[in-house]
Structure formats: structure tokens, C-alpha cells
């Protein structure tokens, strides 16, 4: 009997392994931000922050914060050499114009059509979409980063999103803490399962169509 244990680190590590040197990447607030900590040695990606910078660096040392230098979540950050700043129209020109290779962002629900809901729970929580709608519509590859299950035990991968959508049919990849999926042909195609889970275990507990690819393999992050 396999027991599910939420594990955000695995999600961040698997996403980090997707990128190659030179990729321009936008990491959403929350879970996706962790991805920056797991970029493989020798891989240099360029992080974009939609509030107006390229070359996003790590958080500053305590006392070194600059009131004029924050990320899209208002946290103090730094800029790496070779980075630059620009206004919001340019920032979203970069995003909408397809100049961002990957965007990784958190989800409330993601479905097998590639629909994504992450900005609103009617009557309960309406934070607003911020830059998410543009990022999902504009980035070359959209990665949904999410724990596989809600606290209630329901899977966040759905047949059909029930919450208001952030974007329709734009999600390309889904990385959870049990596996790595590609969204194609109206299905979640399982590319990797993460130890100790199995494809059967994942399919049983996910209320969506999952196809296990012939090339599907087990990835061990222990």
C-alpha cells in the first residue's frame, strides 16, 4: 500500500531538469519559485519577472534589500550581471510575443484539454489573474506545477475544470509530486512516474484520462 506524501521539492526538481542553457523562463509566485533552487550545474537559464526584469537573481542578504527591486510577488530580489529592467508594456511584449520559452505556474485545477484555472474561486477567493493569463497565453511552453492532490484527496488534474479558467487549452506539461505529464489529444500522457508511485496507482486516483506512454519511465528523486 503506497501512501501519498505531498512533496513540493520533487516538483521543483523535475521542472528544473526540463530547461537547457539559454532558455528564458518565468517562474510564478509560490511553488514555481522553488524551481530556481534546483537548476542543474552548468545550465544557465534567464529568469524573467513580469514586473519588469530579465536576469532575476536570488534574494538579497538581510539588510541588502533595495526598495526598487522586487519580484512579481513584492519580495526583494537581486539582478544578475547581464540582466536588465523595462516597463510593463515591454515586459508583456516579451511574454505575449513568444520570447519566453517556458512559464511554470501554480494551479487550482488543470484538465486533460490543457485548460488551467488558478485565479479565482467564485464567492471565496478572487485575487485576480495578475500576469497569469498573458503568461499562459503567450509563453512557448506552459508548465503547470502542482501537488497532485488537494487536502481533500481529490486530484487537481481533472477531466474538465470547474473553476473559471485562466486560459483555455494552453497547458503543455504538468509536473506533480507523483508524475510528469504531457497534455495532448485530450489526455494526460504520463511520461514519468516518481518513486514510490506507479502508473496504476496514479491512474486509479486521478479522475481524468491518462495514457501511459510506451516510453514512460520511473524517475527516482530519493
Amino acid at each position, binding site marked *: 500500500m503506497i501512501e501519498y506524501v505531498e512533496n513540493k521539492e520533487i516538483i521543483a526538481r523535475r521542472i528544473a531538469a526540463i530547461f537547457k542553457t539559454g532558455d528564458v523562463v518565468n517562474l510564478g509566485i509560490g511553488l514555481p519559485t522553488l524551481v530556481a533552487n534546483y537548476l542543474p550545474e552548468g545550465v544557465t537559464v534567464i529568469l524573467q519577472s513580469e514586473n519588469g*526584469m530579465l536576469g532575476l537573481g536570488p534574494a538579497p542578504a538581510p539588510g541588502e534589500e533595495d526598495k526598487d527591486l522586487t519580484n512579481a510577488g513584492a519580495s526583494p530580489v537581486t*539582478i544578475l550581471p547581464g540582466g536588465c529592467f523595462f516597463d510593463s508594456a515591454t515586459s508583456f511584449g516579451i511574454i505575449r510575443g513568444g520570447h519566453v520559452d517556458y512559464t511554470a505556474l501554480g494551479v487550482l485545477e488543470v484538465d486533460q484539454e490543457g485548460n488551467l484555472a488558478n485565479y479565482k474561486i467564485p464567492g471565496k477567493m478572487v485575487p485576480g*489573474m495578475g500576469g497569469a493569463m498573458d503568461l499562459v497565453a503567450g509563453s512557448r511552453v506552459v508548465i503547470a506545477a502542482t501537488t497532485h492532490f488537494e487536502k481533500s484527496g481529490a486530484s487537481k488534474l481533472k477531466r474538465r475544470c470547474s473553476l473559471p479558467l485562466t486560459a483555455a487549452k494552453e497547458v503543455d506539461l504538468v509536473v506533480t509530486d507523483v508524475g510528469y505529464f504531457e497534455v495532448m489529444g485530450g489526455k494526460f500522457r504520463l511520461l514519468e512516474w516518481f518513486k514510490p508511485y506507479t502508473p496504476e496507482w496514479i491512474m486509479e486516483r486521478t479522475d481524468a484520462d491518462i495514457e501511459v506512454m510506451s516510453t514512460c519511465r520511473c524517475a527516482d528523486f530519493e
Partner: protein
Amino acid sequence: MVQKPIISADAAAAMVKEGMTLHVGGFLGCGSPDAVIAALAARGTRGLTLVCNDTAISDPKSGRTTGVAPLVARGQFAKVIVSHIGTNPETQRQMNAGETDVVLVPQGTLAERVRAAGSGLGGVLTQTGLGTEVAEGKEKVRVGDRVFLLELPLPGDVALIKARRADRAGNLQYSKTARNFNPLMASACALVIAEVEEIVEIGQIDPDQVHTPSIFVDYLVMAKGGV
């Protein structure tokens, strides 16, 4: 070159009249014109429509606010047109209570709509928001085999912006991510008030490195602690 008047934060705030549409720079408070906002909060001018990236941060526990949050707290906005209200629970409360009309706009669309107002465009076509609530009630335009949303300009009466530095003519330079929506807001409003940390003589800013040309700026205000 013509010099721009340097006025007090309160004199600037007095130019904002009840019912006006107000464009405010800043991103969750980073790059906000805090001195003018404080003066406007003190005046209590009501019935305003806000165009801004967000309603900034209001932490109910610590009482800490950033950006336009003091204006939200005093109920000075009848309507807010923003991309994000998630860090200001008071905006959410006012929305749910029917006290404030909240229009959520995707951030990139907001930037283009403000830019369109400033640059004489009648609108822009974007795919952002297609298939979502944002598309409801909006005109769709087909170009070839692709469908786009028509998004319309968002002009304003007064822009309150924040820059790092101005020369006396009103040319502006911003600092780091405090730039964000500030140059866009400056282009889209009938009256533009720039709060700055430093005012230098004309000729001291490299003309290749001006972020907002002087002709967009009507008044300068010194930020608190500025020089």
C-alpha cells in the same frame, strides 16, 4: 527648455477631483508615488476610478500598507480597474459588500490598454483572455484563421507616477523594477504629476537615457527624503 513647476504633495493631491479617473504607477507598492498618495488620503477625495496594476498590499495583522492601499482603506475608489487584488483583503471586502466596483484585467492587457490610450490607438487585438471570463461581452475579431479579443484604450484624467530622478524640464528616469507601469500611466492622462527622489538641472540627464520625455510631465513633487 521649459521648466516644470515643483509643487507640494498636497497641491498635487488637490488637483485630483471627485469622480476623476486616476492612473497610478507602481507594482504592489514598488514604484508608487507615496507622498502624493498620502496627501490624497488626507484630503479624502472620493468617487475616484483607479487604473493601476493592483490595489497594493494591506496587511490586516501588522497594519502595514503599500501603494494605493491607504486610498482603498478610506473608501476613496468607487471603481478599480486592476490586474490583482489578492494582497489587499480590504478591496475584496469592499467588492463583496458591493461598495467598490472591481474590474479585473490581465496585466499585459492592462499595459497595452493604457499604452493604446497614450499613443492614439483605438484598441489592440490580443489572445490573452480568450476562453475565459475576460472575453465575456467583448468583441472578437478574426484575422486569417485566428480569433482575437479587441481590447480598448484606458485613458485617464490624472496620472500619479513615481520616478527616481527628474531634470527641471520633467525628463524622467526610473529605478529598477520601480519602473513598471509608470511610463505608461504618464502617456495616458490629461494631467501628469511625477513624484521624484531627485531633481537635477536640465542637461544633466543623458538624452539617450530618458525613460519618460519631459512633454508628458506637468508637475514635479519631491518624494519624502528626496534631494
